[in-house]
Structures are given as C-alpha cells and as structure tokens.
C-alpha cells in the first residue's frame, strides 16, 4: 500500500513537472505584446524602456528563434535539472526561487503550525462543549475573521503590536522578529476556518455509535478519546490542513506586500508582467511539485492514522 502511494505520487510528480512547464510556456506565448519590449521594461524600468533596449534584449536572448526551438531548449535543460536564468534579473532561476519561494515556505510553515496551536485546542473544546459560551464566542470570532480580507487582519495587528506597543517591526525580513506579525495574520485567518472544522468533526465523533460503544465497554473518557475519537477527528482535519497549506503558498501575495516579505506570489506576478518565461516555468514547476509533496504527506499521515488503510495494504 505504502509503495503504491509513493509510486503513484512519483508518477504524478513527473507528469506535473512536464505538463506545468509546457502549459505555462505555451500560454505565455499566447499573451499579446512584444516579448522583447516587455522584458526590456522589466529590466530597465519605465523610464528607460525604448526600442533600442528592446532590440538589445531581442538580440541577446534570441527571441527571433521559433517558439518550438525555444521550447525544446527549455525541455533539454529540464532533463538536466537546469531551470535556466531569469530574463529580467539574469540570475539563475533556482537562486531566485530559493530566495523567494524559500521565504514563502518559511512563512507558510510557521503560519500553519501556529494556526494548529490556536485551532486544535479551541476546536476540541468547542466540539466537546457544543452550545457553550466559548463555542458561540468561537463561532462569532471565526465569522468575523473570515469576513475580513487577511490584509485587514494584518493591518490591525500592525496597528496594535507595531504602532501602539512598539513591540514588533511593521515590515521587513531577516530575523524572527519580522516573521511574527505576517505569520500571526495568516494563522488567525486559517484557524478561523480549521477550528470550526475540528469542532464539527469532534462533535460528530463524540456522538457516533463507535465512540458510545467504546465508553460502554468500559473505557474511561480519556482512553476512549485517545484511541477512538482522536484518529477519527484527525483524518478529515489533516486533509483539510493540506489544502489550506497549498492555498497559503500560492495566495499570500497581499500579506507579502503589506509586510514587505519576499514571496513567490509577488515574484510570479512580476515575472508575468515582464514575460520572464523561465522564471514563470520554474516557479510553476517547483510549486506543482510542492503540491504533489504536500499531497503525499497528507496521504502518509492518513495511512499512519487509519488502520483500515494499513490492513488493506497487508492483505
């Protein structure tokens, strides 16, 4: 079973790498506008983009070559694990990705773990005490937080912690002090949803016949909760957090720009404006593989949590 999971995800990864790169390449080529001009604007800025700069870019990058030739070049490089150089900055795409995607991942990981610290205790408590004051308060706060764009949550946190109490910097990166506010903004927004998810799963499991049976057969509440409720609550929650993590990596542009955090969302937007094809292909490819990896981790967690899957494997 485990080998089957790994094999399936590996095949998926190879397919994703090829498909994502190919698709982005041809989609970019369908976009209107002269590539050489766009790249020149990205490189030299709006005060200096002119025909001479565009011509220099065209000659340097060989943009006159046929699209198929350019595609084959990319594919050959891909087979050698070479993502090429950015057309705008001239730096290797792998170096750009390590910096920008690295920071996005750092923020996403910290925010996800922080959201678990908030959501799990809150969700479990509310699920056990359905209808209590805390359950109702958590529902109210969840709705309030989810109704805000995450950007507003960030701004409010900045006003409180950076401006009022001067405890943390407003924006920037390089050191953990800069990580706290953007991560907390994202964590609050994520926890608003996942805490309700955990609360519902908990409520459902505690009301189920198998949990009741566990109690009837003489297990203490603690024992029944640990062995029968926890894994069943965890299964949907793990899958949900996997999806949240994926959307977090690709969708935190607003938080990145508010906190001047170097991230892949911002880098990708700029790469598209500047028609920086290797950068877009590289970013799409690495993010595609990352999503496969996150799915794999979710699968492995579920495999570990769910004895039915393991038994199926043994048979």
């Amino acid at each position: 079973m485990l080998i089957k999971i790994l094999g399936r995800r590996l095949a998926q990864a190879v397919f994703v790498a090829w498909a994502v790169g190919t698709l982005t390449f041809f989609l970019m080529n369908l976009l209107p506008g002269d590539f050489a001009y766009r790249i020149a604007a990205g490189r030299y800025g709006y005060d200096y983009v002119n025909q001479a700069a565009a011509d220099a870019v065209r000659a340097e990058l060989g943009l006159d070559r046929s699209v198929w030739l350019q595609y084959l070049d990319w594919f050959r490089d891909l087979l050698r694990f070479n993502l090429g150089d950015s057309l705008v900055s001239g730096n290797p795409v792998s170096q750009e990705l390590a910096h920008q995607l690295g920071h996005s991942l750092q923020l996403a990981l910290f925010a996800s773990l922080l959201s678990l610290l908030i959501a799990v205790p809150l969700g479990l408590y509310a699920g056990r005490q359905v209808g209590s004051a805390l359950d109702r308060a958590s529902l109210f706060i969840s709705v309030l937080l989810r109704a805000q764009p995450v950007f507003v949550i960030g701004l409010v946190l900045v006003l409180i912690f950076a401006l009022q109490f001067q405890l943390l910097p407003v924006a920037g990166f390089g050191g953990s002090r800069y990580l706290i506010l953007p991560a907390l903004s994202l964590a609050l927004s994520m926890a608003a949803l996942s805490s309700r998810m955990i609360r519902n799963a908990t409520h459902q499991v505690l009301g189920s016949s198998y949990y009741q049976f566990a109690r009837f057969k003489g297990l203490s509440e603690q024992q029944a909760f640990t062995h029968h409720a926890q894994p069943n609550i965890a299964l949907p929650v793990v899958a949900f957090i996997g999806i949240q993590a994926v959307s977090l990596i690709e969708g935190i542009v607003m938080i990145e720009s508010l906190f001047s955090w170097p991230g892949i969302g911002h880098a990708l937007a700029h790469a598209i404006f500047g028609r920086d094809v290797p950068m877009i292909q590289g970013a799409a490819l690495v993010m595609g593989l990352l999503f496969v990896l996150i799915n794999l981790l979710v699968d492995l967690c579920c495999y570990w949590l769910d004895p039915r899957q393991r038994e199926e494997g043994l048979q």
Partner: protein
Amino acid sequence: MQIKNILAVVGFALLAWLLLDYQAVDQQQTLTIGGPFEFTSQDLSKDGFMYTRMQVAEALVDVRPDGSLIPKLASDWLVSDNGLEWRFSLRSGVSFHDGRPLNADAVVYSLQKAMAKPGVVQQLPLERLYADAEQVVVELSRPYKPLLSILAHYSLAILSPSSYDEQGQVVALSGTGPYQVALLAPPHKLNVRRFPEYWGEAASIEQVHYLTGHRAESRALQAQSGQADLIYTLDPASLDLLERADNVWVHSQSIPRTVLLKLNNAHPYLNNKQTRQALSLALDREGLSEHVVRVPDSAAYQLFPPALGHWHLSELAEKQRNLALAGELLKQQGWQLGSDGVLEREGERFRLNLVTYADRPELTVLATAIQAQLAEIGVEVEVVVDNSSAIPARHHDGTLELALIARNYGTLSDPLALLVDDHLQGGGDWGPMNWSSPSLSELLESLMSSDGEQDRQLTRQAALLLADELPLIPVLFYTQQVAVNQRVQNFQFDPFELNYRVAEMSFAN
C-alpha cells in the same frame, strides 16, 4: 500519542525557531530607508540607481541637488578647442571596496562594460575611449555638450574590475563610495556599512538599510512607528496620518518628472496646433492637482518642472481651463457636436484611444479623469491600461493615438541630452511623435556649443517653443514627499534621485 503532547512539541518548535532566528539590529547606528523601488540585480544598466543612491558606487562626475555638475572621481577635465576630445584627470588616493586602487585602466574597463549595454550611454557620439598615463580620454565624433551629465548617470558609475565575471556581468559589486555592500537580497533589501578607507569625509552613520515597501500605507506606518528613518514616495492619505505624528516631519520637493499627454501628431485629428491647444484648454489641471493626486500647485503648463533650473520658465502664464475657446478652436477645424455630444466631421466621430500603464498607479486614475474632462468638449476617449513598454512599442508601430505618461526629465541632469535624443537623433520613444520643428532643431544645435547668457537665452526660446506648439501636452508636475524621522540631522534631498546623501547626515544625540 496524546494530542496535548503533539501540540506541546509544535509550540516548543515554534519558540525555538523564534529564538534561534533572532537577529538584533543596532538602531543607534543604523539608518533605515524605505521606498517603492525594486532592484533585481547588480547590473548598473538595470539597477545602478540603487547603488548610487546608497552611495556604494560613484561616477566620475557628481550632480548637485540644483543640477550643477561637480568633480567626483575625476578631479578635473579639459576639453579640446574643437570640443571633440575630453581628458579627465582622476582623484588620487581613491580605493575600491576590494582594496584595489582607482586608476585610469580601471575606469576605462568599467566604462567599456557600461557601453556594451543599452541606456543613456548609447546617445554619446563616442569615437574612442582609452587610458593615457593617469588620464581617461574620451574622443567624440562631434561636439556633445551634455557629456558630463551622461557620465554622472548611475549606469556609468565606476566599479572595480573584480566586480565582473568573464561574461562582463557584475557579480560582486565593488565601488568607491562611503558605504560598501553588507547584505544584498534583491528585490527587497540592500544593507550597506561604512567603508573605512573612503577617500572623502567619512560617513557619520555606520549602517544604512534599504527595504522595498510595495504598499504606501505600510511605508507610512514604518515611518510613524520609527522603524524607518526616511520613507520615500508617500501617498496623500499617509500625509494626513504623518502630520499628526510628532516623531516625523515631511519634506516635499518638486522633482523633474511631468505627467503629460503624448500625441500622435500625424493622426488626422491631431495634426494641427489648434486641436492640440483645444485638448490642452479642456484639461482641468487644478482639479486633477487638488482632487486626484492631492498635491496642490502641481498643475503643469510647460514640460519642464521647477526642479530643472533655467529650463523652467517661471514667467509662463498659467492658462485657465477654457471650454468655450476649446470648442471654438475645434469648430474652426470643422468639428460639429453630434446629437450624442461627440464631435463629428464628415461622418467621422472624434474618438481616440488613450494608452497608459499601471506601473505608476496614479496614471490610471488620471487617465479616467482626463477621459471625463475631454468628453465635455465632445472628444470621446477609450482608456487602455497596458504595460509601460506599450508606449515605445506603439510609438514605433504607429498605433499610438494618445498616451498618458509620467516622463522623467531628470534621467540626466541636463535635459538638453534628452531633447537632442528626441529631436535630432531619432530617439523620442517617450517624446513627441511624428512632430518636428526646424526652429527647435536649430536651437538645439546652437545649444550644443553655447554657454553663459547665450545658453540661457536659447534654453528659454526652446522651452517657450515647446510650451507653445504643444507636441506633448503637459498635465501635472511631480512632487516627492519624504517622511523624515526627527532624529535625522542634516537631511538632504536629491531631486534627480541619484543619491540619498546619507553620508552627509547624522543622528541627533
């Protein structure tokens, strides 16, 4: 495993992360600058502005805030009588950040690398560049007065030969400035520290950090919280906020950038002065200035802003909006108002597309305001928001009709270089389209070899001619707004945005 234990492990891990990754900043010795400007590389032709602003790299010549040019790495220069040979002597005792001494060979090597790239340097009628003993010699094919302002440009800052790799790309930038690179994290961050062997007066402030901030509100909050000492490019909403803060003051100063309408002067609707005047008279510049960009007194009735010294004509009268006169001028061209309020002539409607770009956010708002203002005289405008590269691209393929652009007249300290490129050298991708004037060409030719009072007179005539003929219609001047923390002493502002001049600043005790 108990869920409590897992949470405890996660909590402990996050705490450890925060503690291990903590990096202290010595606020007492560090000046932090924030602005919207991104940089992607160490290539001076692309991002040199960042390294001259942060005073890492220096050029042969320096531009003072008033636009005058003074010696920097060149100690002085001599021009041959025919204006074709310039000899630059170099300052002695200057060393690069990598320890190598500055000499003529290093300067020539660095300039040659710059000349292989696109940029303002391509405007030079260069014949030969070489080192002769300890002098750098520039030979031209024809006299070119704005040579010094080109040499002062950031793309021609002098770097040590060790900065370049085999392909001529800058990989380890080493300049001669009072600060050297300490941490480089494009596109957001550049930290520099004092260079102890600097040839000039040592900087008082030890470290300078630059951080790109994309959002204006975030930048304003950095100024207000004291995290940043200087914040460039504040938006009007933030100005209100910062006026109430007691730790910050705001410096406002005109910069040489003008919002203007670029027109296709060969377009059948736009190919005469009267129509261009009518469009200009239909603009409510005061309204745009007060209510759209919210910077009072920024209405522009000439191309050159006050920051450009004698190119700006203070006596040029402000022409009020005059819809009646605009209508009359259009009528003389045969245009009649149609039943739906749009002008018509021989069955054709007065309809134009107006291209602008989103790189500067104010342009799209201004474009729609101008669309509404021109509709009042019966000119129908369709606004197209594109990338900045659409302006030169459409200029060359002839599809440009109207464009709203923010032109930087201060890319070089002397606008003459820009005008010569626009009108005599076939440049002008951002200048007038399909327009030429023998009188202006003659004036510019004369300006290339004039000086003193004659220079002033000719400059005046050229500026007047452009304001009168309207091959480009000026709309607004720009003002740079900088938030300055009270602890910063001797704040300096460079309207050409080539140098933040932090080395001249200090902190209050």
